């Protein structure tokens, strides 16, 4: 989860999120270069006394057309690379269905046995010490580590969005539509997210918690719950 004053990304827990962080660094670097350039030129213009009466300057016009086009290509290529990487055929080991309701999520693991449960936010009055306010749920989404998970996201009533920033996942939950996404959790851990599409009074109070554990532990848990 994010710290109280955090404005940067949460630590990446999936390969796609790592790629996205690197792409963000690359884009911010380009933005920094452009802003520095503009600020320098602006300062130079404002502090100078010389004026220009040039009406026609072909060389500089060519430069300030070609250079921005080159910058855009520098941004587009890594962006498309990651976009296509996210859509690669990756043969998921597990399929999980996430269904958005007002105002909770329900999950279905129906690959092998019929395991379904609802996931409600833990009210602050019932929150144990050390737990995170407005982020904890009664039943977490348990997934095996280092396995590709396919998530089918939909909604029962209004628009919702299933988002887990640390895993680089955000998928809209639209009634009557199945949206697919996939992720791979690189490490053991607990990853928090919140509903990311306005859905009514308790939109801020239907969080998502993904708990990534070794495969053996996941199998124990799922057989315990589906028995």
């Amino acid at each position: 989860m994010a710290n109280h004053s955090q404005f940067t990304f949460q630590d990446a827990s999936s390969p796609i999120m790592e790629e996205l962080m690197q792409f963000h660094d690359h884009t911010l670097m380009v933005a920094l270069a452009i802003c520095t350039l503009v600020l320098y030129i602006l300062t130079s213009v404002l502090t100078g006394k010389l004026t220009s009466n040039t009406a026609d300057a072909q060389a500089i016009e060519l430069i300030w057309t070609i250079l921005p086009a080159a910058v855009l290509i520098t941004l587009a290529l890594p962006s498309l690379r990651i976009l296509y990487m996210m859509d690669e055929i990756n043969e998921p080991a597990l399929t999980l269905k996430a269904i958005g309701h007002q105002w909770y999520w329900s999950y279905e693991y129906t690959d092998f046995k019929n395991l379904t449960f609802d996931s409600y936010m833990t009210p602050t009055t019932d929150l144990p010490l050390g737990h995170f306010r407005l982020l904890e749920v009664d039943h977490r989404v348990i997934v095996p580590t280092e396995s590709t998970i396919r998530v089918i996201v939909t909604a029962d009533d209004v628009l919702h969005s299933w988002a887990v920033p640390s895993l680089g996942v955000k998928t809209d939950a639209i009634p009557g539509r199945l949206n697919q996404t996939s992720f791979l959790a690189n490490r053991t851990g607990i990853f928090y997210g919140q509903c990311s599409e306005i859905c009514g009074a308790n939109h801020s109070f239907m969080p998502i918690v993904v708990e990534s554990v070794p495969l053996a532990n996941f199998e124990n848990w799922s057989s315990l719950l589906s028995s």
Partner: protein
Amino acid sequence: MRGLLAKRMRFHLLGAFLVSMGAATLYKFAVAEPRKRAYAEFYKHYDLMKDFEAMKAAGVLESAPPK
């Protein structure tokens, strides 16, 4: 008195370009590359089971309560 603006512009446009490239390079080597290295270092010696056992002992996992 000829070409005073052109001379100043040439100097400062080159200067602006160099400063902006410098800023970008500084960001790359002060932020972007250390971040990549930090992730590589973390995963180089990462022990999934050890991490799991530590979390289990701390009692933070729903699917693996501490005994």
